[in-house]
């Protein structure tokens, strides 16, 4: 009997080996450098951009290994909600979305107070007065157009409702894109736009694509002549040679500040704060400018082809009102689509 059992060993052991081989990657990594900490970051940054940020941060902070989970803001929020339900949030840092989202997380105790230094170098409107989050880049939503199809783009949000643009507009889905959800609330609160404008916009049959990236692609490829899209997506495509140009609407430019914060559940508060601090440091902001973002610091320069902040009519609505009205605004938009 004993003999028979030993012969069975390979059958049982090999699957076990297979299993441990799978986990081997992580444990081996940890064994090489016992002091190494793993920092998990949830972000909606494009993959290539967050990869560069992580590389620069890891270079400056030896011993911290950053693991990134990238998804659209809507997906991140669902994941965080599900994790909260099942116990604790498994990320240390969140870098995504818009102020209302962070205000909600701060209010329900999900965020820890930040312990950082660079926030004093920023304009106060990009820093949470209660110290839970800090804005990391300015992402305005603008009107892009295909230069092959149009010689001049729509000058304002109001002009998008004109008949000439019927069926030619692409825009991101507010269920998926955090910036789009935010914009929907801002448009509704602007007295010059509001519900009437949004009804007319939807009556112009816009193509609702998943997120800002595909909107930029659609305008650049010419499948939509006009796109409501965050400005860096359009500027980057233009820099690579796509026939796309950027127009900052005269009736006001809504923007999100892609805030960053550290979760209260995090076991890595120190490294988490270091990461957030790095994002708004001069080095971090210079990297942001290289990545075509408008920076939150004045000493980091401006990306090529972008206007100075002072030239843009940025809309600064009351964030609490936006936070309160965002879900309703998105529901209203979705009800128009049906």
């Amino acid at each position, binding site marked *: 009997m004993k003999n028979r059992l030993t012969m*069975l060993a390979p059958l049982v052991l090999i699957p076990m080996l297979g299993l441990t081989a799978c986990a081997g990657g992580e444990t081996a990594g940890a064994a090489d450098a016992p002091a190494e900490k793993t920092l998990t970051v949830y972000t909606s940054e494009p993959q*290539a951009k967050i990869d560069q940020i*992580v590389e620069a941060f890891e270079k400056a902070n030896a011993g911290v290994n950053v*693991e990134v*989970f*990238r998804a659209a803001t809507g997906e991140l929020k669902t994941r965080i909600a599900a994790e909260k339900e099942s116990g604790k949030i*498994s990320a240390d840092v969140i870098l995504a979305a818009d102020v209302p989202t962070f205000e909600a997380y701060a209010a329900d105790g999900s965020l820890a107070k930040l312990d950082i230094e660079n926030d004093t170098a920023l304009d106060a409107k990009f820093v949470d007065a209660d110290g839970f989050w800090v804005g990391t880049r300015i992402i305005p939503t603008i009107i892009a157009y295909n230069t092959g199809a149009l010689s001049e783009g729509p000058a304002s949000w109001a002009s998008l409702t004109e008949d000439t643009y019927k069926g030619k507009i692409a825009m991101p889905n507010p269920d*998926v894109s955090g910036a789009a959800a935010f914009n929907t609330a801002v448009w509704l609160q602007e007295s010059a736009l509001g519900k009437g404008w949004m009804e007319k916009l939807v009556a112009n049959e816009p193509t609702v694509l998943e997120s800002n990236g595909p909107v930029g692609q659609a305008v*650049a490829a010419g499948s939509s002549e006009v796109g409501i899209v965050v400005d860096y997506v359009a500027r980057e495509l233009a820099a690579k040679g796509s026939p796309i140009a950027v127009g900052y609407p005269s009736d006001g430019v809504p923007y999100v500040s892609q805030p960053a914060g550290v979760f209260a559940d995090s076991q890595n508060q120190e490294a988490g704060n270091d990461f957030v601090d790095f994002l708004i440091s001069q080095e971090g902001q210079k990297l942001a400018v290289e990545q075509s973002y408008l920076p939150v610091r004045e000493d980091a320069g401006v990306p090529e082809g972008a206007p100075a902040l002072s030239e843009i009519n940025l809309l600064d609505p009351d964030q609490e009102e936006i936070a309160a009205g965002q879900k309703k605004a998105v529901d209203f938009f979705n009800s128009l689509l049906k």
Partner: protein
Amino acid sequence: MSTHTLDKAAVAQKAATDRASSAGCDTAAPKPPRRGGRPGDGLSVLRTVVWVLMALVVGLPLAALVFQGVQPAARQVFGDPAVAVAAINSVASALGSALLATLAGAVLAVLLERCNIPSRNVLRWLVLLPFLIPPFIGAMSWMALLGANGPVNKALQGLGIDAKLSIFGGWGVVFLLAVHSYPMAYLVIAATLRRIPGNLEEAARISGAGTSQVLGTVLLPLLRPGLLAAFVLTLVANLSDFGIPALIGLPERYTTLTTLVYRYLASSTTSNPLPAVAAIGLLLLVLAVLVVLAQRKLPADTQLGSGPVGQRLSLGGVRIPLTVLLWVSTIIICLVPLFALASQALLPAPGVPLTWENLSMENIVRVATSAGAISGIENSLRLAGGAAVCCTVLGLGIALLLTRGKHRSNTALDVSATLPQALPGLVIAVGWLLIAPMLGIFNTPWVILGAYVMAFLALVVQSVRAPLASVSSTLEEAARSSGASPLRALLDVTTRLAAPAALTGGVVVLLTAVRELTISILLVAPGTQTLGVSIFNLQQAGDYGGASALALLVAMAGILGLSATAALANRRANN
């Protein structure tokens, strides 16, 4: 392009035909002497180990799904009209595409296997190309080809035609599902065709039948079980695909159950989408089981005596026109989209004109060296490798029990090993999502590994079982009479006989799992992003250049890897 080229997916084909002759090999195999079953016998230890593993890998996720799916909170989801619409879309697109795929597969099988079409061997390899490319990459290729300002619409515009072709929407989903499943139908039907002995056709000919009469009165009726098997296989596969409906259907708000579940999990308005997801998973499970049961009720296979395959049918005057038509449609469906994908990967940005000077390796270099893609490749290789090893060992154990031991639990073992292959990937993913917190593996790579093993186990079982069943058990009897215990004979002799087939099965698991999307996208967690998810994310985030560059690399690796595996397996089978 040797003469063996067709049998590229030899294993898949065996798998498919095995499933068609669902009764299993116990009856078909030369009857082994009774062994096993005695308490304390080594075989029963093996049987126990296998059953414990099966209970964990297959039983537990399905039980969790059924349990969660019948809870009152879960049932509420059926009141949602969106679910009804998605269910109708799923069934309709799967039915439509399975019909198209079976039709195309049958026509191709008859033309390429039984007619005197010139250049058959090259054509066989070409028509199987969509099988070697993951469906979501196929969808990306067609998006590139039929983009509003893509090559086709530019050409139409150039010809002064005002109509624009678009791949998006329900019809696009049906068409692309058919494109990616007809090779499977072709393989199943071709295998049935090869088993139809020529003497029946000869009899028809002697009685004065022409080519069309031989086709209509002899071949087609005998093919019916093969056609049915092909239809069911493609139906179930298409019921569960995620990539095509997500990329092609969603932009036009055409939702299927798979994309609906993804939506629930990815950006749901409720904080706990699991009950709803479990209910939808259960609905799909019931649908798949009904389809499988219905197929088992029908005549499983044409039982025919062996004999030489009939001579090639002469197509006469339509031979050349048919050949030209076949070449043109094959190039359009199998090759042109790949070129569109390649051009998208090689152009630096959308809207840049396609000229030689504008082509650059920028996208390919960028994604091939990016941290996200590299970790995706590593994760996929690790998970697929782990799944291949686990499936090979467990699958070998199951196949041994099924072919070399008579036991009352064999039918149940057969069903539990092969059922998951008939289940939509979505059902498997949801099952694992539900048991992950119980097992303490939530948000870890183990969930994906477990789901992969469950999904792909049947590939190994089927690739081992057929060859093992056809080898008589005389060698083991020799070992037994020389004094070896049943288990020893099994391990020393039978395992060695079956090892090559098991390895081939394992390689197929590796190559299938490494580019998997449906399961991984639903189970992804921080640090476990797979290659398929990496590509899907790049595409969704609008980096079409980067996504197609990575997709192009995967498509190339898949074509080369699977072609090579099949050629090797084929050579071994012929030796």
